[in-house]
């Protein structure tokens, strides 16, 4: 039986041969890492793979390739992202070939030891938190599915780290956040890896007026992270890329999770469920309870 790697490479080769796409956005492995790659019809496809270190949310690269016919690997994280992008009219869906894959859950890179023995394990404790909550391991909206469909285990409920932080008494919790925030170096990798932070100019880059000082420090950093979380309120699809890419290990997504939970409980809303799910904070109905709406 062909491996997913072989099937994927064959499928992508066909897409190029049939002139369906200009670029393929996938993962390749080399020098001990699996990482995103933009491939063309002339690329050597032998590095193309999909494994348990295929972390990146590939939808983050869509703006760079806007206007091109594009194939991309979509695991559930990308599927939800594409739905939000579609709802926000950021997606050229007709130019995309969505290649579905069975997602075996990603291993938390912070739990990987040097020999990477964990990659072979099926212990959910080693997975990224999002994978334990995953609702669909196969790609329901795929134009082309590669590999064997797999079953999705019962999703875990809740947000363990968020709940742990919330359980702390207020003062301790504040101290915890202050500590996390003091680590931040504002490299903005969280924002740049985020497929939904697609603004051409982020508020942190504005200087007229300058909303945020450039210097780092717990207050300024918190200011940045909170505003970013609020800009993602009702939009974040919990791919956890922000936390994964953080070089100093801040669990950035805890802030987003608070808001996701609020949206779920107050509006029965989960972002990115379908492409028709309208962004919660800008959609309104005439019979909304707020009487200031004209």
């Amino acid at each position, binding site marked *: 039986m062909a491996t997913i790697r072989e099937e994927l490479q064959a499928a992508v080769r066909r897409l190029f041969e049939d002139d369906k796409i200009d670029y393929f956005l996938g993962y390749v492995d080399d020098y001990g890492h699996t990482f995103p790659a933009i491939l063309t019809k002339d690329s050597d496809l032998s590095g193309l793979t999909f494994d348990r270190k295929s972390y990146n949310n590939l939808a983050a690269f869509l703006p760079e390739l806007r206007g091109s016919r594009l194939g991309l690997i979509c695991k559930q994280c990308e599927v939800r992202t594409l739905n939000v992008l579609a709802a926000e*009219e*950021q997606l050229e869906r007709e130019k995309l070939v969505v290649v579905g894959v069975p997602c075996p859950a990603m291993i938390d890179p912070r739990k990987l030891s040097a020999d990477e023995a964990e990659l072979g394990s099926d212990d959910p404790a080693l997975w990224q938190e999002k994978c334990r909550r995953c609702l669909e391991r196969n790609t329901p909206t795929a134009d082309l599915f590669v590999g064997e469909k797999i079953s999705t285990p019962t999703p875990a409920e809740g947000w363990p780290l968020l709940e742990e932080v919330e359980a702390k008494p207020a003062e301790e919790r504040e101290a915890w956040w202050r500590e996390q925030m003091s680590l931040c170096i504002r490299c903005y990798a969280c924002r740049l890896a985020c497929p939904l932070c*697609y*603004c*051409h*100019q982020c508020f942190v880059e504005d200087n007229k*007026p300058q909303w945020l000082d450039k210097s780092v420090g717990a207050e300024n950093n918190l200011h940045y992270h909170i505003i970013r979380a609020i800009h993602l309120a009702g939009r974040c699809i919990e791919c956890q890329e922000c936390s994964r890419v953080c070089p100093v290990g801040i669990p950035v997504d805890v802030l987003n999770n608070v808001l996701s939970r609020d949206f779920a409980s107050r509006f029965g809303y989960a972002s990115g469920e379908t492409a028709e799910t309208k962004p919660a904070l800008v959609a*309104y109905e*005439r019979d909304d309870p707020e009487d200031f709406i*004209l």
Partner: protein
Amino acid sequence: MARIGVFVCWCGANIASTVDVESVAEAASRLPGVAFATDYKYMCSDPGQKAILEAAQEHRLDGLVVAACSPRMHEPTFRQVAAEAGINPFRMQMANIREHCSWVHADREEATAKALDAIRMMVARVAQSEPLEPIKVPVTRRALVIGGGVAGIQAALDVADGGVETILVERTPSIGGKMAGLDETFPTLDCSQCILTPKMVDASRSEFIKLYTYCEVEKVDGSVGNFKVTLRKKAKYVNHELCNGCGDCFHKCPYKKIPSEFDYGVGNRTAIYVPFPQAVPNKPVIDRETCVFFKTGKCRACEKVCLRNAIDFEQEDEFEEIDVGAIIVATGYDILEPAEMAEFRYGAIPDVITGLQFERMSSASGPTEGKIVRPSDGEEPKVVVFVHCVGSRDENYKEYCSKICCMYNAKHAIILKHRIHDAQAYLFYIDVRAGGKGYEEFWKRACVEEGAEYLRGRVSRLYDENGKVIVEGQDTLSGEQVEVVADLVVLATAMVPAKGTEEMARILGVSTDKDGFFNEAHPKLRPVDTATGGIFLAGACQAPKDIPESVAQGSAAAAKALGLLTKEEITREPTVAVVDPFICTGCWNCVTVCPFGAPEKSEITMTIDGRKVTRPVSEINEGKCEGCGLCVASCPGNCIDQRGFSDDQVYAELGGYLERLRAALTHE
């Protein structure tokens, strides 16, 4: 550095008694960017304006701050002055040191400091203000009048008289409104229908008026000069093109016991009906709710008798989009549902009726052909109690005075006496309000000549006993408890906005007051304008009004609409939103939130790295933007700014406010 002139107004004693205007002007003259500052007794007066013009020339001013009243009062005045002085009107700002300062403060020192704060803020803002030019938009020369009561009819006739096409929309099957159901009118006692029906006919015949009855306004887009209105033409199930109004259909309709809305339930109608004999258009509609064919699929009696095959059960609601330049809202009133006020026993005692029901009874063309009777037994009442202020001037219901009840109660008492000579009218009142030409004389006549008994006091209890209605109350003049054994009780119930006014306000994007009536733009100076340009008010939808007032306001609104519609183009405030296309990501939040459809989806093509990249961006249609700022606030990328309210201006203004705090912090 800007060269701003600051002009501090005393407003007589209004400002000067609380604010030390001279020291404020002196301090203002030392603010950065200020080239000149002075104070004057009435800045808005001719000499005041002249002083500004002279100073502008002498000191080569390029911006003005007028510290006076609210900009809602005099912004247009001083913008005009700025223009005359050769200064861009949008580099003029008013610092409101009257409503926001002198009127609400007593402490002279604090108020003076606050006035200076306000001036400092505005100076900072003007320094950041770009000169702006008004936006010119062509005008659609067509008016829409919503509501076919007397106010709406008058407005439509007057607009049409100016040669402008007018669309008159009425939601019931006929125009005429409440007035069409009235008997005689105060204070002249002329017959309501006799004076109204000619106007109704005029409206239907005018070459400039298009009548849409049984029709509702569904949606309003656009703005002053160019509204796009979607009308819902409700299915009449009768083809009015074919119908000749012969009336065979409703004579044959087997269901005759449907309480007539037009008669307030005093009379009945059929399922296919014309609401009243003088209706315009005098053609029937089928009420789907009560028609047995729509319930059971059987009957079609009307269809069978119609010689012109006008009955069409297949009809559906139709939608039509019309373009108009102005909208006159004349949606009228309803009465406060009397059954909701349990103490008046309406509905519980059949011989307790409302004033409007009394009107239908006394009307010669009404269901009783002018005979006043007790609903319980059809007997002629001999003792009739009229209760004033039912739900009006009552903190439990409506605090306001409904204005017309004193007069129509007097009229009812007179009519009663005229129809039943031995009848006695008793009127429980709080006091009689009869301000109006001939009004005082009219109620005196009821009292003195027609023998109506006025009892000053509220009704304390109403109950039925042996077929009579016992009305207890206190005569506060004699101090005695009174009890009247009445045959009939007539309630002068409060006037409230017509049902659906709230929804209409939402559709139109205009505001309502605490009682639900439409808000006028200014209570004294702009009584028929709304705050939304191009939308005017007429009649009782704005506040309780009698017929002469409603007609007057209808004409006034028509004059306002004509003033707008006779222009080739109008100028709009340039304080519109503007998108920075280089930052815009095309998320369309602005498109979603804008109530006016101003942001439009557009594209920008840029060359990056030798590659042409086209991406979606939002673009503001200046002709539609009302400058509300919703898009500015909802833009996640902060790429929308509002002219005249730019971030720079607002921040400068805030900086001006914080100056005093800064000075305190630095001990300066």
